[in-house]
């Protein structure tokens, strides 16, 4: 009856649907959330962002043309009576063509592999950062379900909040008194697992003062979602001032208090003017049997730095 409006509708509906879908996907992406991974504030995060950009471009070089080619092929060779493009039902082999599409991915992956290997050695987490300033050491332990930060050089400790001096490397030593978690401050750089029975090393640096955040990125049970913490990167003076304030205004963390803290449960932000000496080593060596930990095969050269009882004895001397 009314053939024309119907065919118009058949065009309009898909167009509208496509536009709505695209709008629905693009709108939240531009809605104002912060792309922390793409907006790094430190050298490690910046290199990782560069690497993400490089790998995206390398992949896109092949993928975009292939996507276009797919669309063209599907459109051009659809089964319509008036389709005049070639039809060769038995054409199923061409050494030349296949050589081309074995070669293209080999080249791209080859390039990407070279870049990846270089960056893998450059960004090895336990490698110290090049800087004129000596790094500040912070010992981190993930607990169920909170973070304990110990500042051995300053002698203070905090829970679920982290203060670091800006523009100076930070050496994180990480362990866990709980199931494996992962320590991640996206704007400073990539994460690393915190595992009981061993100490990991991760160097990060905040180039600029500012407030960032970190989280526990590996599932550890019931209230693991509460393991988010603030990261305040301040000037050297402000950092020292903050340390003095914590020393003056807070209670020390005692062994008993630590035991309570390590119990499963959530925790508010807390500050301690002192913590038991060697607490970090105690956590690392908690499960050592007869001077042997289960992971004694991990070497120094690999990221997982092993602290055996010998090391502890030395540090006690």
């Amino acid at each position, binding site marked *: 009856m009314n053939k024309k409006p119907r065919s118009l509708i058949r065009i309009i509906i898909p167009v509208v649907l496509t536009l709505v*879908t695209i709008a629905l*996907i693009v709108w*939240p*992406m531009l*809605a*104002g*959330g*912060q792309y922390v*991974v793409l907006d790094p504030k430190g050298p490690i995060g910046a290199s*990782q*962002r560069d690497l*993400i950009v490089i*790998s995206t471009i390398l*992949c*896109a070089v092949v*993928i975009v043309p292939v*996507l276009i080619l*797919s669309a063209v*092929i*599907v459109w051009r*060779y*659809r*089964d319509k009576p008036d389709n005049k*493009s070639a*039809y*060769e*039902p038995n054409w*199923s*082999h061409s050494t030349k063509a*296949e050589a081309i*599409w074995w070669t293209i*991915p*080999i080249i791209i*992956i080859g390039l*990407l592999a070279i870049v*990846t*290997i270089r*960056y*893998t*050695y450059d960004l*090895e*987490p336990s490698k110290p950062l090049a800087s004129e300033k000596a790094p500040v050491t912070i010992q981190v332990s993930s607990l169920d379900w909170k973070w304990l930060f110990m500042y051995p050089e300053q002698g203070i400790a905090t829970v679920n909040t982290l203060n670091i001096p800006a523009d100076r490397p930070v050496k994180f030593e990480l362990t866990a008194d709980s*199931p*494996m978690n992962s320590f*991640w401050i*996206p704007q400073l750089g*990539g*994460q*690393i*697992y915190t*595992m*009981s029975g061993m100490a990991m090393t991760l160097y990060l640096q905040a180039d600029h003062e500012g407030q960032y955040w970190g989280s526990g990125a590996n*599932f550890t*049970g*019931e*209230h693991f979602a509460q393991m988010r913490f603030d990261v305040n990167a301040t000037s050297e003076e402000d950092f020292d001032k903050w340390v003095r304030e914590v020393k003056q205004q807070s209670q020390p963390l005692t062994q008993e208090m630590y035991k309570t803290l390590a119990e499963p449960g959530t925790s508010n932000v807390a500050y301690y003017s002192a913590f038991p000496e060697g607490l970090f080593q105690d956590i690392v060596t908690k*499960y050592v*049997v007869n001077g042997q930990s*289960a992971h004694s095969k991990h070497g120094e050269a*690999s990221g997982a730095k092993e602290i055996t009882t010998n090391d502890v004895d030395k540090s006690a001397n």
Partner: protein
Amino acid sequence: MLERLKEFASEFFVTGDPLIYGADVAIGITMITIVAVLTYFKKWGWLWRNWLTTVDHKKIGIMYIIASIIMLFRGGVDALMMRLQLAMPNMDFLHPEHYNQVFTTHGTIMILFMAMPFMFGLFNVIVPLQIGARDVAFPFLNALSFWLFFLGAMLFNLSFVIGGSPDAGWLSYPPLSELSHSPGVGQNFYIWGIQISGIGSLATGINFLVTIIKMRAPGMKWMKMPMFTWSVFSTCIIILFAFPILTVTLALLFLDRFAGAHFFTLDLGGNPMMYINLIWMWGHPEVYIVVLPAFGVFSEIVSTFSKKKLFGYKSMVFAMLIISFLSFFTWAHHFFTMGSGADVNAFFAVTTMLIAIPTGVKIFNWLFTMFRGRIRMDTPMLWTIAFIPCFIVGGMTGVMLSVAPADFQFHNSYFLIAHFHQVLIGGVVFGYFAGLYYWWPKMFGFQLPEKLGKWAFWTWNIGFYVCFMPQYAVGLMGMTRRLSTYGWDTGWWELNFVSTIGAFLMGVGFLFQVAQIADGIRKYKTLKASGDPWGGRTLEWSIPSPAPEYNFAITPRGDDIDEWWEEKERRAKGIYPPEQPLEPIHMPKNSAIPFIMSIFWFIAGFGFVFGWLWMAILGLAGVGICMIARSFSYDTDYYIPVDEIKRTEASLRGSV
């Protein structure tokens, strides 16, 4: 006494959550309805003779697929519950503990109890038909595999109402999954559900390897095998080497929990990191186990619906075998952040990237199969065409994740979640749907209504992109997986909200599919399919739909990759194969032992879950008795006489 009974019941049954009470009622009503319907229509005998005791590969395949679709529903409801909880910040829909159970069962069910059985269902229905065989190599073992899978899956699902669900993630990393941190029985359900069905998976792998090696039609040389059969072969090789690792790993975890061993505990020298390595030595190959058959399905469909030979057959075969091989050398990319050092990370980054090469070649070959073809847009082909761009993008993000130092920023974030859902839904689920639509007429003898199928296709696809594209973005905003809640200050809610809309669209797509199947069953008389409804190319299309019990009245030849296509060409030219006399067909007899033995496995598993040794021993003794009974049963086969074959063929061909 009553008090003790009450106390026991409150621990035994899951209590306290209105959602679960609702589900209890629903399960109860469904069971009563099923029993009532079977009794009313006097179908118990039919059920027992035709289904529960069958060794027919086609029926077993259909049962696999039905079970997997039910599991898709359960896993999908889990997914929607998670998406509801994450739709807005600070939602209070699911308590964290409940949320943790939901994502654990979602992952476990979707991979092990949805994707695996769906895949085995397609293997079962199609492989013997494609290679011109009368059944699989070991029909009894095949039935046993199915029932082990089914009762394993049921045991796992039982944890929903009895004892409590596992909540340590789909791979149950220790020490979280150890007694020290998960004292409940949920983890035991996880271990035994997977163990029991895992035996079935391994047996299926062996069964199909032997079937493909030994039972191909005369003339079907290795390089003349249809591509789906090749994909099954490649997958079965992976199963053969990967599943024993899973079994051993979970057995060790169980020894930790049950017998106080210390393989993966924190104390007394246990090493949880060893578990993570072992489970991924199975877990990564597992990804290729489920995706390779999907590749096989796409290869068949692309060729059929482009009316053109598959391009680059040899490349396709070698690409799949290379993927099978490489799949065993990439496992550590799941934990680049464990600090194994630059040497290890560089090695596993490169091996992971290498897989992109054969996969890329396969994409090109599919594209060039369509090039200079004539593409028909029926539902199987629609899913195939949707797969290509989806998988290209998913593959690209996979390569990005394999760049080890960059992975330090992607790991455990929603970027990763979006990636693996894109390859698992866009690759595996789309592939199995395409396969189901493609072979549906062969299984049931009627076509599915196309219109509802197209509605399902479009809602699924739009839903997919609306759900998962925002998840890439929210990953780059630092949102990590398995968070049960997040705050307003994160800036994540818009993306999560839209993602939830997409998830529900996919749910609507699933409902369309259910409606499509229901509508098809209602109108099946008008939708009758011929033996070859799509213009097929391989041997399964040369026989009537649905295939008769014995598959081929006369053993076919398989001299060409597209044997049936060539045969049709020859017939068009008036060249007919010489008449061959019918001969009695040797067939395996039905057996109740697989079903009964699996029930005993279920009893044993249940006993181990609750630590009731008497029950476990009882179950294992039953398993042993079944094995002995089988060893002494000699009456396991029979012949179908020529008259009966003639009658069957006449009625089937007549109705075509």
